[in-house]
């Protein structure tokens, strides 16, 4: 559901770009903060200018934690980029592909997950013409902010209430279904508010097609996360501070 240029009016694309930038900026700040929390001494040492051999040892640990976390983000980003190329046929001459919002946020945490989806969308838009440049803010709002970040909390609530494997699978499945559905509804509303098409036509049409795609998303997300686990990729493992 990458919106191309021409379907949104400038007000809607600028407005959603600001909204998307605010949330992604917040996510970047939270990731920085959680990385700093891994090693508060490093930050204090930076302020005080205190250098000691003990701290330089800790510094090394910090560097490897930070680089490791970014390597994990990069790996998930490349996986989602690849999966989004893979369109599978759904009902009546329509195709869909994995959005991957819940894979990213469950694997890395909601803040890093949203950043990963946003980065994938930026690369797709700049280099592949998949989603317009002017519509990039709206696409990030729909798929990264709503589809990954906001819908993570559906998973989080379900898994909090049912702290067992069934609760985990239900949480992943239901949240990924809604990540596609809600992203498509947001997309439809943005296009309608731009005056491109009537709201009462586009919202039901988008919602009905994407509720079918959402079922695939739920299954593929569960399978995808199992594959990550089997590759010894700890889900949300390194930075548990990210809550």
């Amino acid at each position: 559901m990458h919106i191309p240029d021409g379907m949104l009016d400038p007000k809607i694309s600028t407005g959603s770009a600001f909204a998307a930038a605010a949330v992604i900026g917040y996510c970047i700040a939270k990731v920085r903060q959680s990385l700093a929390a891994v090693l508060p001494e490093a930050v204090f040492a930076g302020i005080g200018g205190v250098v000691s051999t003990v701290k330089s040892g800790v510094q090394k640990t910090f560097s490897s934690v930070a680089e490791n976390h970014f390597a994990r983000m990069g790996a998930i980003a490349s996986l989602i980029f690849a999966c989004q190329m893979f369109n599978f046929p759904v009902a009546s001459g329509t195709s869909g592909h994995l959005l991957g919002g819940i894979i990213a946020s469950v694997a890395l945490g909601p803040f890093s997950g949203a950043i990963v989806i946003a980065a994938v969308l930026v690369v797709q838009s700049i280099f592949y013409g998949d989603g317009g440049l002017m519509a990039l803010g709206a696409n990030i709002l729909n798929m990264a902010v709503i589809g990954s970040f906001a819908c993570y909390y559906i998973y989080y609530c379900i898994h909090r209430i049912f702290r067992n494997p069934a609760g985990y699978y239900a949480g992943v499945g239901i949240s990924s279904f809604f990540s596609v559905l809600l992203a498509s509804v947001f997309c439809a509303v943005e296009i309608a508010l731009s005056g491109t098409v009537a709201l009462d036509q586009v919202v039901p049409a988008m919602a009905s097609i994407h509720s079918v795609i959402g079922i695939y998303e739920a299954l593929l997300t569960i399978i995808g996360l199992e594959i990550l686990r089997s590759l010894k990729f700890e889900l949300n493992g390194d930075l548990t501070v990210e809550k």
Partner: protein
Amino acid sequence: MKSSARNIFLVSVLVVILAAVFASSFPDGLEKVAKILGFKHKGTSSPSVFIDYNLSAPFMTNGIISTVIAGFIGVFIVYAVFRLAGFLISRSFSNKKAA
């Protein structure tokens, strides 16, 4: 942990190959709705390097190979962006400490 990141990078490369061979060319959900409701013509394609995940090179006649290469480049770009960000951030923290 880093080895698991590399394994996932390799899985992505595999997915790109599978996607190039098997991906459906049906319109996606939004395109389909735009077609039915008659606003598809409003969408304009923005200029970019790899249109429709293809190398737009004259010597590239095989669609599958072209998509595989375009996909590899994308997978590599997103991975590299994060590795670079990680390198810069861990260095920025080290520099703060050294100062």
